[in-house]
């Protein structure tokens, strides 16, 4: 699966899940008991079901951003590793030192900070895109390590995160 597709897959799953929640809400609103049979919604007070669905939607938003970021970071690391290998393969006269150096870089890439990896693409990507990607990372970190005492960084709507991360990967692929 190509990088934009991997993120697209998460995005499509998000959309389907949101639609399912909407359908469930409609069924509850219209009292379609038959479609609710066998679900956890039966025998639950309607206000509790509504509150649970709304809370699930908010959790889903944050989890979608966490998942998209995980895929994004994995794809970015893979791209940098592949680019390092290409540099080695395409150079006809590399020394043993060159090889040792590139091997060392390749082995260490996955331990680099995400911000530093993104910065490598500064010469090739629109500066706004770099900025948005870093803001998504900050928000992702805040969601992952949520500390109620810490103020929130800029919040990220899932659809905007999807558009940005898919575009960054597309442009990174083109620039390599």
């Amino acid at each position, binding site marked *: 699966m190509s990088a934009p597709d991997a993120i697209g897959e998460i995005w499509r799953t*998000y*959309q389907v899940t*949101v*639609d399912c929640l*909407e359908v469930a*809400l409609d069924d509850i*609103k219209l009292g379609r008991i038959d479609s609710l049979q066998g679900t956890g919604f039966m025998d639950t007070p309607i*206000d509790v079901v*509504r*509150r649970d*669905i*709304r809370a699930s*939607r*908010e959790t889903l938003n944050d989890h979608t951003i966490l998942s998209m970021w995980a895929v994004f970071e994995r794809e970015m690391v893979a791209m940098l590793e592949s680019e390092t290998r290409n540099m080695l393969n395409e150079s006809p006269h590399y020394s043993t030192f060159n090889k040792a150096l590139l091997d060392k870089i390749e082995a260490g890439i996955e331990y680099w900070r995400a911000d530093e990896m993104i910065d490598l693409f500064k010469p090739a990507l*629109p*500066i*706004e*895109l770099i900025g*948005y990607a870093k*803001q*998504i990372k900050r*928000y992702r970190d805040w969601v992952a390590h949520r500390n109620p005492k810490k*103020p*929130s*960084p*800029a*919040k*990220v*709507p*899932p*659809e*905007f*995160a999807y*558009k*940005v991360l898919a*575009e960054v990967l597309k442009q990174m692929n083109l620039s390599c």
Partner: protein
Amino acid sequence: MNETNEHLLKEYLQNVSVLFANIENWSVKRGLEVNTTTLEINEEEYGTYKIEKLILTDAGHSIAEIIPIGCSIVGSYGRVDLVGLMNREVISYLKKGGPYITQSELIDGVMKEVHKKYFYRDINDTGWYWIESTRLGRAKKFDEALFFDLLASVSDYERA
């Protein structure tokens, strides 16, 4: 807080205030009651500040709340959410055109701006917009008709 952030926060508070005045006006025309309470928002960029939220009721029956979420939002200049018993919709303050990226190309050894690529369509003026988030990325200007459509979709409020 630096001067730029102070200015951005002031603008956000003012934009929310104008939006709330409109919503109150539209709601009262339909016989809905509008109450306010104060809430606190804590954001890295702006610190802690107080802001009002609106509570809409119909004959004592709670319908929805319009809750400011914050000034610091990636891709927009602030957000309020319309939250009903059943769902939540996001209203964003966007500058004309909306968020974009500047595409550049190396031409004769010099990086030149080629074009701007916008994330959303139909943001023809600065103002409050609702993004049809799970579909086409098309923005709709937040007006009275859209407000009541969204109110019906997040709550059990029936349009007259």
